[in-house]
């Protein structure tokens, strides 16, 4: 990172990132199934979205996420050992185990946090963009949120604020078609999140969220706009979550097998792999090696996390304030 050009190097980075995410999520599900954490929101199926965007970001740029943010964190370069430790509530985690799966952050990597309240990070990200503006840096702030979150008033308030102040922010809606068990077409009047940008005089783009290449392109333009001080962009990436909302639920309770099959047939990793092979950017063996490395890295992360100690009891009462009294 950042990868301004779409070439072998950037394609391989994206592949590796997406495979890491998937393996990480598979492992976290295993940890959850083993009872080591509860209610974990898997990002499997949505790997392409943050990957295509974060390809344009450096460590000084910021990303803010949601309850479903493991993929954002990995795409932003967070250490998966610390992430997995956080999931297991260990003292070696990104937040010393205090935040957990919905609250992973690493300010040194520009990840200013996942957030468990739907929509809640949108204004926070707007403030991050304000810092860049006030300080005159060329930093960019990216906030990811779901189709469900698009119904929260703060999106409207933040688009308005970013619009009048021309802030360097990118609003990325990961439209995975469901908010819990509520289908997108039920909850979003007008049928499009991207279209709402018009009302704020800012560009709104819809993109195939399974094609990391398409996302890369719209991300490039949006990041450029932001860096040049031309203001915000709203991107709606049409994607799909493969698993249930938080794991324990069966998505076939509210969506059809056909629909699932349709989306899974357009798997973002499979599609990128094909593109890489077709273009000769890497060969099968190289990609297999990456697959192996990712798997090993995730296993190592699981081992690290499981071997790490829980926080000391006194940690309950520290970090509430920087200083109190």
């Amino acid at each position, binding site marked *: 990172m950042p990868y301004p050009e779409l070439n072998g190097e950037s394609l391989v980075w994206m592949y590796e990132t997406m495979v890491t995410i998937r393996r990480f999520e598979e492992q976290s599900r295993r940890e959850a199934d083993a009872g080591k954490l509860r209610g974990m929101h898997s990002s499997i199926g949505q790997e392409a979205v943050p990957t295509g965007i974060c390809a344009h970001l450096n460590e000084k740029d910021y990303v803010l996420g949601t309850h479903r943010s493991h993929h954002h964190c990995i795409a932003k370069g967070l250490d998966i050992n610390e992430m997995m430790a956080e999931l297991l509530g260990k003292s070696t985690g990104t937040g010393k185990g205090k935040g957990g799966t919905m609250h992973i952050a690493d300010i040194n990597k520009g990840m200013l946090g996942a957030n468990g309240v739907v929509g809640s990070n949108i204004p926070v990200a707007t403030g991050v963009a304000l810092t860049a503006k006030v300080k005159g840096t060329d930093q960019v702030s990216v906030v990811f949120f779901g189709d469900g979150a698009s119904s929260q008033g703060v999106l409207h308030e933040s688009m308005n604020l970013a619009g009048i102040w021309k802030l360097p922010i990118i609003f990325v809606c990961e439209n995975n078609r469901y908010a819990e*068990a509520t289908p997108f077409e039920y909850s979003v009047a007008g049928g499009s999140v991207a279209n709402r940008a018009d009302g704020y005089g800012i560009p709104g783009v819809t993109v195939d969220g399974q094609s990391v290449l398409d996302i890369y392109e719209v991300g490039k333009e949006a990041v450029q706009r932001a860096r040049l001080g031309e203001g915000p962009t709203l991107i709606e990436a049409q994607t799909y979550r493969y698993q249930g909302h938080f794991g324990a639920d069966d998505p076939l309770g509210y969506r059809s097998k056909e629909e699932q099959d349709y989306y899974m047939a357009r798997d973002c990793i499979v599609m990128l792999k094909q593109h890489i092979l077709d273009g000769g950017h890497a060969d099968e063996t190289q990609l297999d090696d990456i697959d192996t490395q990712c798997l090993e890295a995730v296993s190592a992360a699981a081992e690290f996390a499981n071997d790490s100690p829980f926080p000391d009891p006194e940690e309950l009462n520290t970090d509430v304030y920087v200083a109190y009294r």
Partner: protein
Amino acid sequence: MTQTQSTRQISFIQAINEALRQEMTRDPDVIVMGEDIAGGGEREDFQDAWGGPMRLTKGLVNDFGRTRVRDTPISEAGFVGAGVGAAASGLRPVVDLMYVSFYGVCADQITNNAAKMHYMFGGKVKVPLTIMTGIGAGTNSAAQHSETLYSIFTHFPGLKCVVPSNPYNAKGLMTAAIRDDDPVIVFNNRQLMGLRFEDHVPEDSYIVDIGKSDFKTQGEDITLLGIGYTTRVCMEAASILEEQGYSVEVLDLLSLSPMDEDAILSSVQKTRKIVIVDEDYPRCSIASDISALVAEEAFDYLDAPPKRVTAPHTQVPYSRPLEALFVPTKEKVVAAALEVLE
């Protein structure tokens, strides 16, 4: 209560579900709104896909249809506000605010509108709104999904706040809330949700009076006051203390606003000692409120200062060993009681 043939035990969830169903049957003006309370949006083939995140509303959409059982977008300010407007114009809406921490996006509608309209409009508009919301730690859900917070709603005039502790009173308080002409918030502890209790839950509809607390046990030596989940903790602590020879009175508060001050004071006047057990944050809380009440109104009766066992002044931690230290436990209650008793 001994378990007889006629004892009917249902879970906390079923109790609330039953109250909702009975009130919806009884009164066509009762509607229910919230995120995924039916689920599946309006897809014909996926009716009742979810039935509420805690399954509190399971089955209602099949019986009452989508006009009265409404899935909402994730717009708490929008739909809680709509609940206020619907209540003020002739319906009796029940609105599900999934977790109490989400009050943050809709507090204006609750405290500036629901709570104040009746007064500001000179008593001429009623707001018979019920809000039900999930509270409490212990489920590994971290700082934004585990708060208790009923204290801040109790702070506001115009609102009523109730906290059931078992399926019996969950059903009765829910029924009372729906029939009440004022806005009522029902705080349901998530750790209690799946539980069944010994108490008999009548099948017929009934009311547990808002504003009345419940003596779970009578005793002479000390009063343990519990709220919702902590009533359970108090009962466990009482058993331990009774084994040690103390006679313990457990008072289940049930209503925070209005609050059964008489019961609290009469209990303390008898036992002369009280431990208040509460999971909410300690500052400006219901625990301090009760402690202050007792100190001021029963000062001359007290043998020892009132004592509070609460959550600490810290966020709810994610990590389980830390989270276990956050919630009041029977051990902490026993220790506090012994301190007061000795």
